[in-house]
């Protein structure tokens, strides 16, 4: 109960600020919190990255192993993306199998990477039709202070950039860097009343659950969109959001190039 009242007060505070054209942490509506990317933090993984957006922290680890290709794509490696919202990361996460939120998180990140063709899957064939590389992208949230989606997407592509294909361990030739050829970036906007803000922090997320994530590739193509939340979205606002998403993605992509 006490908790609910505090949530209500914070919600009113967030909404009041927004009405005044401000955010509670002083950011502009289209401003991200500070983003930090650290790669190679898990030596036992083929690739890894820790991404912080403000206080939000996500680790992504990449593991690879040989496996069978799908029957309809015998000449391509396989990406499997998985997200665990472990209870460490938030007082509201519970232990157990993935719920709809972690499934959505994993699938939206996956689509950004898949549709931008960020990983050149044709280079991950060991023996056509028989054996290809499986790339496991495991998203592990550590601290959820809002916008896990963008942090996870950034961590995923950063970890892929950091990945070495462990061919030697499996005695199939020399190790080589995972062929990454595009840098998809997800930008999540949060709809609050009549406006939208990018990179919502937890207080903003608690004020409303209305999101839209637009992922774009290095050529500003849209490669994935996901409206998430029980709200009705105005068409004109959608176009503004896309505009902003392309702009912010370009900025965040620069960080990836420094990795």
């Amino acid at each position, binding site marked *: 109960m006490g908790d609910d009242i505090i949530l209500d007060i914070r919600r009113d505070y967030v909404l009041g600020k927004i009405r005044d054209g401000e955010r509670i942490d002083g950011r502009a509506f289209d401003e991200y919190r500070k983003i930090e990317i650290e790669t190679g933090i898990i030596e036992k993984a083929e690739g890894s990255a820790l991404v912080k957006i403000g206080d939000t922290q996500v680790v992504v680890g990449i593991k690879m192993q040989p496996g069978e290709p799908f029957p*309809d*794509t015998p000449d391509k490696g396989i990406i499997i993306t998985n997200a665990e919202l472990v209870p460490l990361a938030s007082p509201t996460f519970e232990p157990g199998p*993935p719920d*709809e939120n972690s*499934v*959505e998180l*994993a*699938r939206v990140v996956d*689509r950004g990477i*898949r*549709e*931008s063709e960020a990983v050149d899957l044709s280079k991950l064939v060991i023996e056509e039709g028989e054996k290809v590389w499986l790339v496991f992208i495991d998203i592990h949230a550590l601290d959820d202070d809002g916008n896990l989606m963008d942090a996870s997407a950034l961590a995923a592509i950063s970890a892929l950039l950091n990945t070495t294909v462990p061919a030697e361990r499996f005695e199939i030739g020399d190790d080589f860097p995972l062929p990454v050829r595009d840098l998809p970036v997800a930008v999540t906007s949060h709809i609050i009343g009549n406006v939208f803000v990018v990179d919502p922090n937890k207080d903003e997320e608690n004020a409303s659950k209305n999101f*839209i994530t637009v992922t774009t*590739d290095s050529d*500003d*193509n*849209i*490669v*994935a*969109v*996901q*409206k*998430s*939340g*029980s*709200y*009705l*979205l*105005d*068409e004109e606002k*959608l*176009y503004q959001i*896309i*505009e902003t998403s*392309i702009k912010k993605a370009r900025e965040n992509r620069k960080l990836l190039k420094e990795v």
Partner: protein
Amino acid sequence: MSNKDEVRLIVDGKRLDGRAFDELRPIKIKVGVLKRADGSCYLEMGKNKVVVAVYGPREVHPRHLQDPVKAVVRYRYNMAPFSVEERKRPGPDRRSVEISKVSREALEAIVMKELFPRSGIDVFVEVLQADAGSRTACLNAASVALVDAGVPMKGMISSVAVAKVDGELVLDPMKEEDFYGEADMPFAFFIRNDRIESIALLQMDGRVTKDEFIKAVKMAKDGAMRIYKMQKEAIKSKYVVESEEEVD
């Protein structure tokens, strides 16, 4: 999206099934097809065959799942094991979980939940046969079934996808267009007073430019309005409605 290699999806300005770019697949709608449910609808959209039952507003068990200020909406998208080429194992997979989530959210935005505190409104969707666009077919049927159940809503939901194939945008893609195409964009619109007010569901994967995306929205709106008319007709006549666009 798989990369199409040799497959050509548009030949002489026509789609593989003979449709024009902005043409819907044949649609068939039957209202009130189930006795036990409070509202129901059977809908075909191309080869998709779906049945929807609505139960509620009714009591929610166990009690801790109740919401003291509004109704709780559940949406369960489920594929019959025989609905696809290779038998599907019964039970929810990750794809069904995601579709159920975004579809539920679309309906939550238009159902007048505040009228039924502590209640549940259950929308159960069974895909008997799946083709591309099954989530849009299900939402169209669900919207009709909710009306059939007498659940108060702010308007209707009409849903359709647009795909990009061979560089062209096409309405309501069928399986080959979905599989080999360059992009898939399922939409659902909120329609009130016979006009589209806003977007209730939006997903996209593939690769399109911003301009193509805007063009796709327009195309989808146009298709959705045609579907909406059929939904309305079906509800009014409480009988079978089949689209005049039917080709076969």
